[in-house]
C-alpha cells in the first residue's frame, strides 16, 4: 500500500489553455459527469443510444453488456446495454458497484451472475463469468468511467481535462476505495480526490444557498443519501468557507435495489410463490418489474400489478400503504443509522438546521414521509437528488486544479470506519477510531515477545466489531530483519496514515538498533493475482520506467516526511542534543533536501537512476544521526508510547 502522489497542475491565464476538472458520480444504478464552466457546474449530456441521436440524457445507466448475441464482441455501456438485460441477464452487469472491493462472502443479495473466485485468495474480488471472458468489477466500472470520459472529451477542448474528482459513498471502506481508484487508473483517468458523496452534496447545497436570513454563524446539516445500492448519513457543520464532517455512517449494501427485492418478495408471496421456487434469473426479472412498480408509486397512490412466472399467473394492486410496510426493513435501518451518527457526533435532533435528501431513492414519498416524521422537520430536496453529488464533485474538482487556492472551500472530512490491529486471541485493538478527522497519522510502538525474535506480523483490519473475523482484513505487514535482542527491547514504530481520500498507508521501522527492517505487505482484499495480470496486460505502458519513477516518488515522499518529522522533533526535543550534533543533523537534512529538489519530470531512465542514487546516498548519511536522536527521544518517551498499548505478541 503506497501513498499516491497527486500533482496539482497549474492553471494558465490564457483562455485557450484553460483546464477543466471533472466531477464524476459513479453510481450503483446511474452515473454522470459534470464540469464547471463559466463559474457554473452542469452535467454533460450524451445521446442515449448510438442509433438515436436526438434523445439525450445526462444520466448514464451503470450497466455494461458482455454478451455475444447479434455479433457483439466488445463491451456495450449504458442504455444500449440495459436493453439486453431481459434476454441475457447473466451477461448484463448492473450494479457493479455492489461488487467493488467485496469478497464472495460479502455478497449476500440475490443476483443473476456467475462469479468466479480467485484460487489463491478468498478475500479478493470475484470476477463475473461472461461470454466475453472473466471480468472483474473493477473492469466493469472502468468501462463506465471511460464512457463518461469520452462524453467529457467531446464537450471540452482537446487536452484540457486535468483529472477528475470521483465520488464514493462515505461508508466505503479501504477495499472499496482502492477498487474505485483502480477502475479510474484502468480508464486512464487521473483521480484528484475520492470525495465522499454526502460531502459532495453538501458542497452543492452550501455553495448554492449563500443567502441565509438567520444570524447564525454555523449551521448543522444532516445529509441523508439513499442511492440504488448504498446508504450514507453525514452530519456536517458549515461555517463560512468550511465544511466540517462531524460524523458519518451508513451501509454500503443498502439501497433502492433492496427495496426492489422486498417488493419482489411481496409479489411472490401474494402469488403464492416463494423466492426459492425461482431461479436467480427469474428473481432478477421480477425485481425489475418491482422497480417499475416502485417508481410508479412515486406519482400514484396505487398501481395495478401482475405476475406471470413459474406457471403462475396473478394480478393485484399495490398501494402506497403497502409499500410503507414492504420497505420498512430498509427505512428502519436508515433511521437507526441516523441515530447512531447523531450519537457519534454528540448532536441532538433539536440542533439540526436542515435535513438534506440525496440520491434517487429519496424521491419516493414513502422515504420523504418517514424522514420528515422521524426528524419532525420537512427535509430539503430542491436540488435534483440524482444530480447533486456530481455537481458538488465538479465544484470541488474545479477548486483542486486552481492555481490560487486560498479562496477554496475547505472540506474537513473523517474516516468512516475504525482502524485496528489484531491482538492476542483474534481481538481487535483500535488504533484510529471512526469519525477521526483526516488526514491523520497515528504511531504505535511494539516490541518483541521472545528473545532473539527477528520478525513480526501486524494484521491491520477495518471495522467496528471486536473480533478480527468480523472486520475487513486490510493486510498483513511482515517485518523481518529485526536484530535479535532480548525480548522487550526492540522498538518497532508503526505509523498509520489516512490521507484526504480516506486511504491508508502504513510504514514501520525499528528504532533502537539503527538497522532498517524490511517490510513486506500482503493486501488481503482487492484484485486477485489473475485479475491483476489481466489488467497489466490490458495496457500499462513503459512498465520499467513507470516503476522507477514511482519508486523514486516513494523515496522522495518518505524522505520529505523524515525531514519534517526531524524538524518537529528538533523543536520539541532539541535539548537532548549538543550544539554540534544539531548542526551536523541540520546539515545532513539540508543535503537531503537539495537532493530531493532535483527535477524528475520527463527524465530518461539513466537520469532517474542517478537522482535516486543521490537521494539514497544523502539518506544514508542522515540516518545514523537521526537514529541516535530517535533513540534518545525513545528513551525519554518510551513509557508514554507504551501506555495503554498491549505490548503483546505478534508471532512470526
Amino acid at each position, binding site marked *: 500500500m503506497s501513498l499516491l502522489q497527486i500533482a496539482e497542475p497549474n492553471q494558465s491565464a490564457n483562455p485557450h489553455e484553460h483546464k477543466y476538472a471533472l466531477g464524476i458520480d459513479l453510481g450503483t444504478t446511474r452515473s454522470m459527469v459534470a464540469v464547471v464552466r463559466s463559474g457554473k457546474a452542469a452535467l454533460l449530456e450524451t445521446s442515449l443510444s448510438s442509433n438515436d441521436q436526438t434523445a439525450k440524457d445526462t444520466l448514464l445507466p451503470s450497466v455494461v453488456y458482455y454478451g455475444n448475441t447479434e455479433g457483439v464482441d466488445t463491451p456495450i455501456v449504458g442504455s444500449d446495454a440495459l436493453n439486453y438485460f431481459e434476454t441475457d441477464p447473466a451477461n448484463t452487469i448492473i450494479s457493479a458497484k455492489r461488487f467493488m472491493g467485496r469478497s464472495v462472502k460479502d455478497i449476500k443479495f440475490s443476483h443473476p451472475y456467475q462469479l468466479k473466485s480467485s484460487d489463491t485468495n478468498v478475500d479478493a474480488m470475484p470476477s463475473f463469468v461472461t461470454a466475453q471472458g472473466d471480468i472483474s468489477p473493477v473492469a466493469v466500472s472502468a468501462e463506465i468511467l471511460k464512457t463518461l470520459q469520452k462524453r467529457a472529451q467531446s464537450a471540452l477542448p482537446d487536452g484540457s481535462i486535468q483529472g477528475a474528482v470521483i465520488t464514493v459513498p462515505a461508508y466505503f471502506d479501504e477495499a472499496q476505495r482502492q477498487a474505485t481508484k483502480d477502475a479510474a487508473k484502468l480508464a486512464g483517468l487521473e483521480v484528484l480526490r475520492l470525495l465522499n458523496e454526502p460531502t459532495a452534496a453538501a458542497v452543492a447545497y452550501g455553495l448554492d444557498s449563500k443567502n441565509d436570513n438567520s444570524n447564525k454563524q454555523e449551521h448543522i446539516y444532516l445529509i441523508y443519501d439513499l442511492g440504488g445500492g448504498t446508504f450514507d448519513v453525514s452530519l456536517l457543520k458549515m461555517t463560512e468557507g468550511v465544511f466540517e464532517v462531524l460524523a458519518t455512517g451508513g451501509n454500503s449494501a443498502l439501497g433502492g435495489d433492496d427495496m426492489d427485492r422486498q417488493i419482489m418478495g411481496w409479489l411472490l408471496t401474494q402469488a403464492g410463490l416463494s423466492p426459492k421456487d425461482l431461479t436467480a434469473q427469474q428473481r432478477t426479472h421480477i425485481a425489475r418489474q418491482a422497480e417499475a412498480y416502485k417508481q410508479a408509486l412515486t406519482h400514484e397512490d396505487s398501481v395495478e400489478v401482475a405476475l406471470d412466472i413459474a406457471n403462475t399467473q396473478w394480478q393485484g394492486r399495490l398501494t402506497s400503504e403497502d409499500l410503507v410496510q414492504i420497505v420498512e426493513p430498509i427505512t428502519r435501518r436508515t433511521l437507526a443509522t441516523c441515530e447512531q451518527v447523531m450519537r457519534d457526533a454528540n448532536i441532538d435532533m433539536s440542533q439540526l438546521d436542515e435535513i438534506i435528501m440525496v440520491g434517487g431513492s429519496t424521491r419516493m414519498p414513502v422515504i420523504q414521509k418517514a424522514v420528515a416524521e422521524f426528524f419532525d422537520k420537512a427535509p430539503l430536496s430542491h436540488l435534483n437528488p440524482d444530480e447533486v453529488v456530481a455537481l458538488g464533485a465538479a465544484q470541488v474538482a474545479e477548486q483542486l486544479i486552481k492555481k490560487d487556492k486560498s479562496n*477554496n472551500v*475547505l472540506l474537513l472530512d473523517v474516516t468512516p470506519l475504525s482502524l485496528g490491529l489484531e491482538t492476542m486471541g483474534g481481538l481487535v485493538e483500535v488504533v484510529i477510531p471512526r469519525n477521526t478527522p*483526516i*488526514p491523520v497519522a497515528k504511531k504505535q510502538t511494539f516490541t518483541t515477545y521472545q528473545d532473539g525474535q527477528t520478525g513480526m506480523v501486524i494484521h491491520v483490519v477495518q471495522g*467496528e466489531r471486536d473480533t478480527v473475523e468480523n472486520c475487513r482484513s486490510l493486510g498483513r505487514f511482515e517485518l523481518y530483519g529485526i536484530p535479535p535482542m532480548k525480548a522487550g527491547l526492540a522498538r518497532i514504530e508503526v505509523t498509520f496514515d489516512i490521507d484526504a481520500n480516506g486511504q491508508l498507508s502504513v510504514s514501520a521501522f525499528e528504532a533502537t538498533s539503527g538497522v532498517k527492517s524490511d517490510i513486506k505487505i500482503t493486501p488481503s482484499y482487492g484484485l486477485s493475482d489473475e485479475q491483476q495480470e489481466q489488467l497489466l496486460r490490458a495496457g500499462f505502458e513503459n512498465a520499467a520506467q513507470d516503476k522507477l519513477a514511482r519508486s523514486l516518488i516513494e523515496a522522495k*515522499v518518505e524522505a520529505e*516526511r523524515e525531514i519534517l518529522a526531524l524538524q518537529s522533533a528538533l523543536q520539541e526535543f532539541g535539548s537532548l542534543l549538543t550544539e554540534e550534533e544539531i548542526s551536523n543533523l541540520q546539515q545532513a537534512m539540508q543535503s537531503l533536501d537539495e537532493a530531493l529538489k532535483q527535477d524528475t519530470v520527463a527524465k530518461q531512465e539513466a537520469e532517474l537512476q542517478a537522482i535516486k542514487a543521490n537521494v539514497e546516498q544523502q539518506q544514508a548519511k542522515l540516518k545514523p544521526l537521526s537514529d541516535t536522536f530517535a533513540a534518545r527521544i525513545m528513551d525519554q518517551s518510551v513509557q508514554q508510547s507504551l501506555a495503554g498499548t498491549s505490548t503483546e505478541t505478534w508471532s512470526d
Partner: protein
Amino acid sequence: MSDNAPTFANFFALFELPIAFEIDTTKLSERLRQLQSQFHPDKLSGNESASLQQNSAVINHAYDILINPDSRANYLLELSGQELNVDHSIADLDFLDDAMEMRMALDDAESESDLPAITKLKTTVDQRIETQSQRFTEAYAQQDWSVAMDATQKLKFLVKLRKDMDIAIDNSQQEADDDDLYL
C-alpha cells in the same frame, strides 16, 4: 522542505490558547478551522502533497490531544517535565471500587440492552470526570504533581470507561441480523 509547515512551541501555542487545563472549546474549534484553512492540502498549491498531508495531520493530532480531558492533562504534565509512570497502577481502593461497580452495572445493562440504564451510567461517569478534572486543575495550579498525576490516571481510566459505554449503547441498538433484508 515545505516552508508551509506550522511552527509552534507546543500545542497550546499552536491554537493560541493559554497553557492550562480549562480550555475555551469555542476558540479551539475556531482556531482549528483557521489552521486547516492555512495548512490543509486543498488550500495550498504545490506538488508536495505528502508534506501537506503531514501538516494537516499534525494539526488534527494537536486538536485531538487538547480536546480530550485525559490527553490534555497528560500533555500538561509532559510540558511541565512530569512523567506519568504508567506501570504504577491506581492504588485508590475507593476509586477502584466505584469504577468496578460502574463496570458491572454496565455489563448488566448491556446484556439486557437497557438503554436508559446505560445513559444514566454515562451521566454518573461524566460527573466523575468533572470531579477529577477539577482536582487536576487545582493540583496543577499548585504544582502538586503527585495529585495531578493521580487525577490524570483516573481521567484516563474514566474516559475509557465512558467510551465503553458508548460502545454498549451502539451494541444495544444493533439489528440482530439481516434476515429480513436478504431473501
